[in-house]
């Protein structure tokens, strides 16, 4: 059973556009929501993360919006660039013990010049 549902599976935008990737979760025990960026042939890298006590977090051109009541969170990429073309994974984890994130299925983003 997939506990973190990510959409869309793929996304194509023009340079300067604002791609939005959405994730929804079911387990209310989740308390940490990271986004990972993965380029072809590389390992995922943490991009930005949020905890449920805030509704929005911004780092540079990347923003997470978090809606606790709807159990949804999304990644917005402002002024997208061709270098942002990558696969993006949302994830969620519960507190305590080992950190074991549950990953979404990923979104392949292509930003055309």
């Amino acid at each position: 059973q997939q506990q973190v549902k990510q959409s869309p599976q793929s996304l194509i935008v023009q340079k300067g556009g604002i791609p939005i990737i959405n994730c929804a979760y079911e387990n209310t025990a989740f308390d940490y929501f990271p986004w990972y960026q993965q380029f072809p042939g590389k390992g995922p890298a943490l991009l930005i993360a949020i905890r449920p006590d805030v509704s929005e977090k911004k780092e540079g051109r990347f923003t997470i919006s978090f809606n606790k009541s709807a159990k949804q969170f999304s990644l917005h990429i402002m002024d997208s660039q061709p270098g942002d073309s990558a696969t993006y994974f949302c994830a969620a984890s519960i507190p305590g013990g080992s950190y074991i994130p549950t990953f979404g299925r990923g979104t392949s983003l292509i930003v055309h010049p």
Partner: protein
Amino acid sequence: DAMVIQNPRYQVTQFGKPVTLSCSQTLNHNVMYWYQQKSSQAPKLLFHYYDKDFNNEADTPDNFQSRRPNTSFCFLDIRSPGLGDAAMYLCATSRTSGTASYEQYFGPGTRLTVT
């Protein structure tokens, strides 16, 4: 720079021939993980070490084994690779302190090809 290092980056093995992938970290993190990632899929956790304690995922095949001789090193052994084991293998680390957990840091991965 502190990092997670995986060797080799590319590994070709024959069907049924044992192979070992290695991971080392300079982050002094107490948790180390092995993931399998196939094309266009999310990473799939195989197992992880919390300090010296080994934790196997329920659906990880017996064909996959792991060793962690010390804090810095972790190995993935595939005893009899099948064609279906061709994938990217990712090592990751994280640091935990009591109930506070910290994010994962991934290595660059080892691309395994089975011929």
